[in-house]
């Protein structure tokens, strides 16, 4: 390096300026402490095995979604192939489980690290050419690589196990302080530990120089280059870090389910994490956490109630994209300003007048959908159905008519009070809007 280094001379001393508080404050640490306590307490509130399974799935999805948001929300990279990094990390971990001699010496909680490193390794290779440009080119390359690796799963059978995938047994690992991870609850705490650690590390990453520059490159890659940063390398480092945390999620998946298949790295899974992240909101760090919780609940709880749950998820996604591009987190944070101004009370009335009809509309539309679905798909002669604890004949016209009327009336009422709602929002968000 023969470059002149004049830029690095410290700037001349200036008049005193306000010092910024740097230390870790309680206010900064509080969400994390509460989050940790919450994770510790959850199994005491929801004790059934199925609830714990759902919580584990949630935790894995949260890590995966947060890692995805390092690309989408923080770095402005729209990936259609992020499942690949989670998938390969998971596959590797199952292989390690099956590698008896080695696994017998390894405590299970360490295993996800290997998933992470492997995901990172793949991201290193792919990122070296995919992060040159953002935008469409990046998206297309991610799609191509996703398709390629998914196709490899039936070609490289030794690693991916073909169509059946590969399975292992987590309990062969070195007992960890006597714990052999035979019980769901033990796996829960392992997963929760990794959730806390990964989320914290990803949050801290966003506060590092490279994490900040990822935002800058997202906003304006050209300008970032005039500040000394290569947009390409900034994207590359974010991409590699995202690959690492996706791999961690993959390792946790391997521990939880002890099987990985092509489904774990195909495009459908990649598309799903995009949906989850967007639903939660890409603009805030905690957005994907909300998205992952909501989506896992829909996926596990709603899917028990109705066969067409994916239709509802699709509608929800569309509504989010069209009306609430900030996602769930964006909607929540919209309330911060009215709350700070002490004017959130202005919103209550209009909220009730809009939301109640909107809910009626949604329930009516959903009922109509369920009735129609039942009409088409129920076994011959089976015309009785139960909806919202009411049992009726799905072939009779009256229930369908009621549902349709509820949908239309709810829609009409919600539409009618929408302008008042918008006005209330405006008032509540303007200083002194409610005074006098």
């Amino acid at each position: 390096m023969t470059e002149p280094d004049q830029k690095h001379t410290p700037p001349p001393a200036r008049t005193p300026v306000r010092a910024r508080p740097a230390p870790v404050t309680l206010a900064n640490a509080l969400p994390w402490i509460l989050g940790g306590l919450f994770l510790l307490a959850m199994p005491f509130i929801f004790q059934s095995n199925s609830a714990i399974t759902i919580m584990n799935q949630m935790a894995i999805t949260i890590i995966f979604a947060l890692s995805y948001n390092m690309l989408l929300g923080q770095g402005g990279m729209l990936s259609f192939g992020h499942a690949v990094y989670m998938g390969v990390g998971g596959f590797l971990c199952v292989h390690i489980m099956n590698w008896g001699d080695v696994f017998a010496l390894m405590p299970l909680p360490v295993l996800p690290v290997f998933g992470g490193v492997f995901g990172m390794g793949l991201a290193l290779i792919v990122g070296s050419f995919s992060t040159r440009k953002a935008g469409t080119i990046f998206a297309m390359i991610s799609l191509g690589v996703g398709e390629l690796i998914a196709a490899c799963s039936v070609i490289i059978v030794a690693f991916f196990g073909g169509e059946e995938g590969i399975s292992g047994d987590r309990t062969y690992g070195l007992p960890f302080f006597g714990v052999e991870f035979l019980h769901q609850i033990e796996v829960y705490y392992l997963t929760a530990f990794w959730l806390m650690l990964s989320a914290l590390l990803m949050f801290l990453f966003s506060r590092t120089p490279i994490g900040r520059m990822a935002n800058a490159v997202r906003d304006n890659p050209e300008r970032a280059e005039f500040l000394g940063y290569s947009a390409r390398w900034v994207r590359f480092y974010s991409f590699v870090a995202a690959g690492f945390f996706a791999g961690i999620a993959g390792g946790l998946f391997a521990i939880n389910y002890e099987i990985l298949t092509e489904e774990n790295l195909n495009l459908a899974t990649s598309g799903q994490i995009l949906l989850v992240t967007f639903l939660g909101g890409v603009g805030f760090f905690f957005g994907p956490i909300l998205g992952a919780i909501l989506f896992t609940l829909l996926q596990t709880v709603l899917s028990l109630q109705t066969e067409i749950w994916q239709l509802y998820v699709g509608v929800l996604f569309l509504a989010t994209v069209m009306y609430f591009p900030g996602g769930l987190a964006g909607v929540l944070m919209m309330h911060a300003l009215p709350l700070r101004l002490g004017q959130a009370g202005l919103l209550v009335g209009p909220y009730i007048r809009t939301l109640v009809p909107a809910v009626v509309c949604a329930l009516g539309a959903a009922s109509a959908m369920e009735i129609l679905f039942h009409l088409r798909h129920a076994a011959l002669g089976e015309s009785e159905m139960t909806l919202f604890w009411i049992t009726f004949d799905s072939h009779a016209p009256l229930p369908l008519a009621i549902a349709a009327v509820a949908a239309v009336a709810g829609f009409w009422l919600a539409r009618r009070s929408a302008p008042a709602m918008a006005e209330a929002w405006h008032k509540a968000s303007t200083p002194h809007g409610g005074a006098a």
Partner: protein
Amino acid sequence: MTATPGPPPALEIAGLKKSFGKAEIIRGVDLSIGAGERHAVIGPNGAGKSTLFNLITGRFPPSSGAIRLHGHDISGKAPFEINRMGLSRSFQITNIFPRMTVFENVRCSLLWAQGYRYSFWHMVNRSRDLNEGAEDILEQINLTERRDLPAGVLSYAEQRALEIGITIAGGANVIMLDEPTAGMSHSETDYIVNLIEKVTENKTLVMVEHDMGVVFGLADRISVLVYGEIIATGRPEEVRSNPKVQEAYLGAALEAEH
């Protein structure tokens, strides 16, 4: 000239040409700007002033010719490489990070200059130099009040000030400003000119400017670019009295001033 010992000029341009397709926009520019000089580039609209800036700062590669920064060849280098060698620029069309806060905009402009590079082991909140440096710049560009707003919602004049803040934050020793006062009111212009004067002390400044009051007040030397060629370079009074300049540009520009 080249035989004289001593430090090389801050910026030295020789035989620089640039064509977009068939159109030759920069048609052979030679220019030497000494270290510590305040140099203004003036000329009519479409003369190629911004294009000249874009060539020097690496936004476009030149079609031919040489550009040297402190004696090092920089033609064809990427913008970030040139910036790391101590050259920073602003843009005629505001070029900021709209979704980040004003404070983040400025802090990001300090990162490379303070040696953080691609670090993922430093926390930006914890560095005193970084945060105080950013606050200091905000103070200077009068945007302290706006520090936590997304830069995209600032008014036009505020965004122009931020544009300059981002450019000067890193403490580069060659600063290039493309129409820094464009669209500013009289008092804003005065303020910004003062600021430019202050922050470019002992540094090399190259600026494109249409406001002749600013140009003649600030510049040590002036180059007049017309239709891709420099028709005159010299001290303000030389340029002012140059008949070629009078004819091609200044006559009209000075009239417009009054």
